[in-house]
């Protein structure tokens, strides 16, 4: 019992302190503390209660646009991660020419989203396709490099160990390389969930028919600040939720990992 208490008290504080801090922050914001600190006018930054009202008033519109953007982000994330993973596998299995694929991906990745979005709009039109394409580009590099590291950064002698059993290349891949890369794959997914949402939203800024980024930019243009902040809030919640889901998968899949001790 005593031990249990010792274990849970710091854990409880770990949860409680951020919540308390969050509440305090919202309170200060509500009471115009942030405006005072940053020298902002009231119309420049709505207070939490105004944002909450905008959230409630525009529920349907917010939800449908959130779904639109999340779909772009998730589809792009999945396609991009698959391409990235496939490239990493090729670079591992055929090191001679497969590594070239990684170089190509890193070149793509070096193009900023701001430059990529108009190009993709031009190629794939103003609908979802162009946004998905941007997300694919951002997600594939993160996956390719992390997965490649996981498939190739092996413990010393582990390849020798497999060689001593006369293991086939196939067995080395499935019994050693692939499981060794799981933590890196999850890291890549964690990075990409966040960046996918950003990529999708930023792409919608340029030209779109719908989505969080599109509506956000409209709301800003028409000075509907509480609505704009409602969209920002929705984007943040989705980002956190996706990150949380991947973290949950990670805790479950990496029971064996030192970091889970």
């Amino acid at each position, binding site marked *: 019992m005593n031990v249990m208490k010792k274990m849970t008290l710091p854990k409880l504080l770990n949860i409680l302190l951020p919540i308390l801090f969050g509440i305090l922050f919202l309170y200060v914001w509500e009471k115009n503390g942030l405006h005072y600190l940053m020298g902002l006018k009231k119309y420049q930054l709505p207070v939490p209660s105004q944002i909450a009202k905008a959230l409630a008033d525009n529920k349907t519109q917010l939800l449908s646009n959130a779904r639109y953007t999340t779909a772009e982000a998730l589809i792009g994330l999945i396609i991009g991660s698959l391409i990235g993973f496939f490239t990493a596998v090729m670079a591992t299995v055929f090191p001679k020419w497969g590594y070239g694929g990684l170089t190509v991906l890193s070149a793509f990745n070096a193009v900023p989203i701001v430059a990529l979005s108009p190009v993709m709009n031009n190629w794939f039109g103003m609908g979802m396709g162009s946004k998905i394409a941007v997300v694919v580009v951002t997600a594939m590099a993160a996956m390719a490099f992390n997965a490649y590291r996981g498939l190739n950064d092996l413990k010393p002698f582990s390849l020798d*160990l497999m060689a001593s*059993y006369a293991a086939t290349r196939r067995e080395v891949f499935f019994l050693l390389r692939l*499981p*060794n890369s799981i933590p890196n794959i999850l890291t890549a997914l964690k990075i990409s969930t966040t960046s996918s949402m950003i990529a999708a939203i930023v792409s919608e800024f340029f030209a779109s028919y719908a989505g969080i980024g599109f509506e956000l930019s409209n709301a800003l243009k028409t000075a509907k600040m509480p609505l704009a902040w409602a969209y920002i809030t929705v984007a943040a919640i989705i980002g956190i939720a996706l990150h949380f889901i991947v973290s949950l998968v990670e805790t479950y899949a990496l029971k064996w990992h030192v970091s889970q001790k």
Partner: protein
Amino acid sequence: MNTPEIRIENVSMVYSDNGASVKALDNVSIDIQKGEFISLLGPSGCGKTTLLRIIGDLLQPTSGNVLVCDQTPRQTRMDQKYGIVFQSPVLFDWRTISKNIRLPLEIMKVPREEQNRRIESLLELVGLSKFADHYPHQLSGGMQQRVGIARALAIQPEILLMDEPFSALDEFTREKLNEDVLQIWSKTNKTVVFVTHNIAESVFMSDRVCVLSPHPGRLSAIVDIDLPRPRTKEMRDWPEFNALVAKIRNSFEGV
């Protein structure tokens, strides 16, 4: 005399990375009989690991010949006749202890029932039955090394190559495992090449001790250990035992 199980003939090994070259082995020849327990003994850097890796076909010698079971080390490796214990345990972090021991058995397609039987008895042998379902990071370094030994024994290899398997262990565990390994070996009649830098350990375990000297790695003496078997703890106090230890120690001073 029969043809030796392992024949090492004039083997030399020169490592060269970017210009600099290190002569790790210089013209080493050893014949090892089937069922023999041989130790490679010598100070750090004298080429023990290098020679072991050459025998196990994990490294190609610069010159010289190695025959194992009347064939090349490559063929012997492809026949899955080697069990190797490396200097570090090399456990797969994502596998539990029992699944780590299962790894080679899966690769060699040993029937599941038989896998379970061997894993259970080996865990018992290395005193880790309670840790079967633990992950490697939950074990101490010495415990991990014991898993590595159990894993090598699991495949009941024709030839067991061990690279300082006990160097990370405390004296108590080391001496106990010395006896355990000898006991398993006496039952199976396998050929063992055992690398160590501990003189007493090499005397206790071996039929013969190959003493290597460094820079470059040369075979400086082969000492017959004519102590009776089975070896027991008490023998460590015998005058004959200590005489052999002294003899080997002196052979180093001559270097």
